[in-house]
């Protein structure tokens, strides 16, 4: 029987025979993840369950990344809960301080997640790891507490939407644009409870970092997972990120898909998701003249080295508009160091950017770049909900790093073409 990639991945983790969408199966998990906001509740649940030891201390990952560096007393005290638990349970993969970074950039980079894995995380963007062919999905803290105790979770087998991405990417079109175009097409609940499975010649050529960007925002279409095939590019990525010897894996062409969505990228121009919903997607050229006060380049969506290079390519030899604060947050220490090696930090600094630490910070209105009343941001993050980055009277435009950097220079929502590029 032909299977979707989602079904193949789940079948590897359950003894029950997968028959089709809607079936609920008990699955073994390979990695259980939580962060500084969600771990304390998961730890409470774990203790309330009467659990004494985690099912496998090697398979628990705790990343302090949202309100760090600890932004105030409450968030500092919140981190103490995770730190104490990691010590008590002797969990080796506890990340805090200078070794920590944005979780969904950190885990694939360190080879802690990889093809074929089943990953559950108390963070909705856990779906990022579908970019390397892992069945990875976000859950709440109580589910994560249960997974820490049992090493298992229940999952409903999702139907799969096949997303066929064809064509040649124009010079300034990025993975982020592809995903925003798709979310614009599907709507924010168009893939609710379902898997997105990416295929097509544009996907075959898309580097793994771009795939991680796309999979990251599967949740913004309501999806449970966003899955990419495990191909030569994945194998090369994994080989250089501590996961050698990975086998290829893809969904069967003759499997039953709920629907197929085709997207031709050849003639597309860069887009933004306008306030206050990620599906409100328009070409940059159609939004008009919109002054911008803040630009954020970073996050689990676009904080990787290819994103930093993209931003630097636009910012090199140019200046950030005086009315804009352009904040660059490389997602992990390794990305930070690579920026330094390649001279990107000098480019950012010369352009007048603020370069900050590896944190989720402003994406969720935590710190390191909050919007005031009436302010507008262009951000490479993943959500533009009302008030997400600060004031309820502020606006967020989601975009790729090239559009964000161009907007910082232009002082308004702008594409590279607006700078003559």
């Amino acid at each position, binding site marked *: 029987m032909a299977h979707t990639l989602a079904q193949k991945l789940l079948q590897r983790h359950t003894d029950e025979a997968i028959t089709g969408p809607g079936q*609920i199966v008990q699955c073994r998990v390979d990695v259980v993840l939580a962060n500084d*906001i*969600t771990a*304390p*509740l998961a730890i*409470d*649940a774990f203790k*309330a*369950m*009467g*659990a*004494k*030891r985690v*099912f496998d201390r090697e398979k628990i990952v705790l990343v302090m990344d*949202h*309100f760090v560096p600890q932004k*105030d007393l*409450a*968030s500092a005290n*919140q981190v103490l809960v995770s730190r104490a638990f990691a010590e008590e349970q002797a969990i080796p993969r506890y990340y805090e301080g200078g070794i920590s970074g944005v979780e969904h950039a950190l885990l694939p980079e360190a080879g802690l997640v990889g093809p074929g894995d089943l990953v559950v*995380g*108390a*963070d*909705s963007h*856990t779906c990022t790891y579908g970019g390397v062919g892992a069945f990875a999905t*976000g*859950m*709440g*803290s*109580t*589910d994560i*507490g*249960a997974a820490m*105790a*049992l090493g298992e979770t*229940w999952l*409903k087998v999702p139907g799969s939407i096949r997303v066929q991405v064809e064509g040649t990417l124009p010079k300034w079109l990025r993975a982020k644009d592809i995903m925003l175009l798709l979310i614009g097409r599907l709507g*924010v*609940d168009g893939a*609710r*409870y379902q898997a997105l499975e990416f295929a097509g010649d544009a996907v075959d050529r898309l580097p793994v970092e771009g795939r991680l960007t796309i999979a990251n925002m599967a*949740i913004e279409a*309501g999806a*449970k997972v966003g899955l990419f095939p495990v191909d030569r590019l994945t194998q090369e990525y994994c080989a250089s990120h501590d996961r050698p010897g990975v086998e290829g894996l893809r969904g069967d062409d003759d499997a039953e898909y709920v629907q197929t969505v085709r997207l031709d990228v050849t003639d597309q121009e860069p887009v933004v998701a306008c306030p206050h*919903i990620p599906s409100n997607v328009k070409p940059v050229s159609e939004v008009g003249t919109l002054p911008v006060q803040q630009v954020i380049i970073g996050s689990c969506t676009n904080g990787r080295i290819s994103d930093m290079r993209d931003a630097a390519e636009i910012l090199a030899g140019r200046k950030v508009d005086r009315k804009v604060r352009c904040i660059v947050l490389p997602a992990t220490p390794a990305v930070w160091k690579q920026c330094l090696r390649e001279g990107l930090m000098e480019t950012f600094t010369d352009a007048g950017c603020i370069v900050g630490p590896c944190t989720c910070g402003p994406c*969720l*209105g*935590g710190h390191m770049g909050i919007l005031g009343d009436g302010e507008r941001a262009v951000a490479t993050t993943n*959500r533009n*909900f*009302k*008030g*997400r980055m600060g004031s*309820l009277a502020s606006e967020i435009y989601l975009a790729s790093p090239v559009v964000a950097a161009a907007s910082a220079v232009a002082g308004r929502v702008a594409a590279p073409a607006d700078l003559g590029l």
Partner: protein
Amino acid sequence: MTYKGKARTVGDHIDTDAIIPAHLLVSSDPAVLGPKCMSGLDPDWAAKGEPGDVLVAGRNFGCGSSREHAPIAILGAGIRVVIAHSFARIFYRNAFNTGLLLIEAGDDAATISDGDVLEIVPDQGVVRNLTKGTSFTYPPLPPHMAAILGAGGLVPYVRERLAAAGGAS
């Protein structure tokens, strides 16, 4: 068990930042989060309601982050039941795990107006609109979830499993 309360309606795609803004996620106490429930929508939203109100929403309620603080904030505001056209999947699991009753009502949700008095009988899977004199039914939980609920929720369910496996591992 029967729930009776006044409907408070909200729109489509109410996200978790609307339900409980992220800067408040330094507590998970329902008494702290409850008064801030829906403050991303209206800073005074919680103060305008009463314990026992029934939240009635459109499509995709609870979309966005995995924060369990969202159902906790709703419970903290004294709301025990949410009726919506549909729910985002992580929120659905979180509500189930925290004891907030969700009713996925499809188009029936839109028949409810703000202020309508509702009576919900989970054992019968029925919602009665006492103001309008109408009612609708909703499907039971899948068996796997019903078993977890039957054990008292996920926490007691896991506790039983750990005990059956020879004490906490």
